[in-house]
């Protein structure tokens, strides 16, 4: 229990430092007073007695300083003594020393690992420039519409059914088009879905790839560039356009050897021919932290490449499968954007060509910052990480207690 005794004396030394100083002052001043009193008793007038007493005492500050110095070294001396003692104990029982060092190392190592993970996951920023102005458009309604075919990919966590009401991050293609053309608060609007798993052939042995469906403005909205070739453009995302694909940097390296000759090559995705037109910047691994994909293909290809049972159509309001992400115009606040987007949204779903909400369902669109909304990784990992963090913290505590005792 020597550790606790030392700890206690350190804490009390630190806390009582000023108390001790006061005591020293008290003692020294009392001495001078006593001397003055004695001199006064022997006939010296008070003022003179005090002066002489102070003189006889000598350098008041000097002696106070000497005491303070001695206190300081005292603290250091006892510390060094304790360290030497500790080292002697360790040398005497190397087995104990080994176990102590090992347990502490494990505790510290585990804690560091968990904390790095927490740091990476919980505090990670989106890998795109100016991510602060990127927002996600999602909606709520008090009543479910008569028909709602929803496909979500876990990117955003507002997707849930709250009893009668519904909240969702997925919108349909027509709604996306409406927002894109009529919401003036955004400098650009894009949407994406996925990744979806596709069968790839035409590059050696057949394989499966993860492909994200992205609208024409996806790369410009995110301000992500191609490192070779080009990215998907709105003309690629048109109805009759030739199918193109943009590869993710990592996938390009692993599946195509990082060769520039990949540009212009054709591969088959679910037996449909796609031309590879570019490779994305290596810094752009995925928009949603924690997810990844091998390539991006135009969103309008969705009906042709997604599983038949998903039955995705581009012209139907109740097929919600896209996640809309937009960039705020300079000077526009989230509140303003939300109000504007809501107007467009309600117009489309209540009074559009094929309205699929009724007034009493009170559908509303909300706008949330992208880094907050795209919580895929946080949702998956948060709870286990906290549990793990707690466990590892306890392990370190136990390791310390073990060594102390």
């Amino acid at each position, binding site marked *: 229990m020597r550790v606790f005794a030392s700890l206690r004396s350190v804490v009390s030394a630190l806390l009582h430092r000023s108390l001790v100083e006061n005591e020293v002052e008290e003692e020294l001043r009392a*001495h001078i007073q006593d*001397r003055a009193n004695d001199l006064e008793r022997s006939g010296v007038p008070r003022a003179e007695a005090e002066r002489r007493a102070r003189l006889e005492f000598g350098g008041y500050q000097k*002696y106070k300083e000497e005491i303070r110095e001695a206190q300081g070294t005292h603290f250091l001396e006892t510390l060094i003594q304790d360290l030497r003692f500790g080292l002697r104990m360790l040398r005497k029982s190397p087995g104990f020393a080994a176990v102590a060092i090992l347990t502490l190392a494990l505790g510290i190592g585990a804690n560091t690992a968990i904390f790095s993970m927490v740091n990476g996951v919980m505090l990670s920023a989106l890998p795109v420039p100016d991510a602060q102005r990127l927002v996600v458009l999602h909606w709520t309604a008090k009543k479910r519409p008569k028909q709602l075919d929803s496909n979500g990919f876990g990117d955003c966590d507002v997707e849930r059914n709250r009893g009668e009401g519904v909240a969702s991050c997925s919108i349909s293609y027509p709604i996306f088009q409406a927002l894109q053309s009529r919401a003036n608060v955004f400098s650009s609007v894009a949407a994406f879905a996925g990744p979806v798993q596709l069968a790839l052939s035409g590059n050696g042995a057949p394989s499966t790839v993860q492909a994200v469906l992205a609208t024409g403005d996806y790369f410009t909205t995110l301000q992500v560039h191609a490192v070779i070739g080009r990215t998907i453009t709105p003309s690629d995302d048109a109805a009759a356009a030739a199918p193109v694909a943009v590869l993710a940097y990592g996938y390009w390296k692993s599946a195509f050897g990082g060769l520039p000759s990949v540009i212009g090559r054709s591969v088959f995705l679910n037996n449909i021919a796609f031309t590879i037109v570019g490779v994305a910047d290596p810094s752009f691994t995925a928009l949603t932290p924690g997810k990844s994909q091998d390539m991006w293909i135009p969103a309008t290809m969705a009906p042709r490449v997604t599983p038949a049972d998903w039955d995705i159509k581009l012209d139907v309001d109740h097929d919600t499968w896209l996640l809309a992400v937009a960039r705020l115009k300079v000077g526009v606040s989230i509140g303003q954007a939300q109000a504007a987007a809501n107007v467009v949204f309600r117009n489309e779903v209540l009074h559009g060509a094929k309205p699929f909400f009724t007034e009493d369902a009170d559908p509303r669109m909300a706008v949330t910052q992208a880094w907050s909304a795209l919580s895929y990784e946080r949702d998956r990992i948060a709870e286990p990480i906290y549990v793990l963090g707690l466990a590892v913290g306890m392990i370190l505590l136990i390791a310390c207690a073990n060594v102390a005792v």
Partner: protein
Amino acid sequence: MPEHAQILPGTLDLLILKAVSLGPLYGYGILLRIEQISHGALLIEQGALYPALFRLVRQGLLKPHWDTSENNRRTKFYELTAAGRKRLRQEEDGWNRLVAAIGSALKAQPEEI
């Protein structure tokens, strides 16, 4: 009046230990007693007492405690610990031996060589 002798640094500690050995004392009282038992022959600058007291407490030779003095003031008293008593004895013996040795050396007559 006897001549004043300069006090040697290490001996202040010894004098303090001796003074306190005659009964627990506070700082000013220790000073008075040193003056008393040395018959005023040993001069020390009064303030030098306190770093010395602090050192002796640190070394475990003196033990302080707070109490009220005659004039009802909160005062710090010092008393000798067992280790202090032992150290005093050792120092006294050493000092006596030194005095005897030097004394006999000084008494040396030319014939003894």
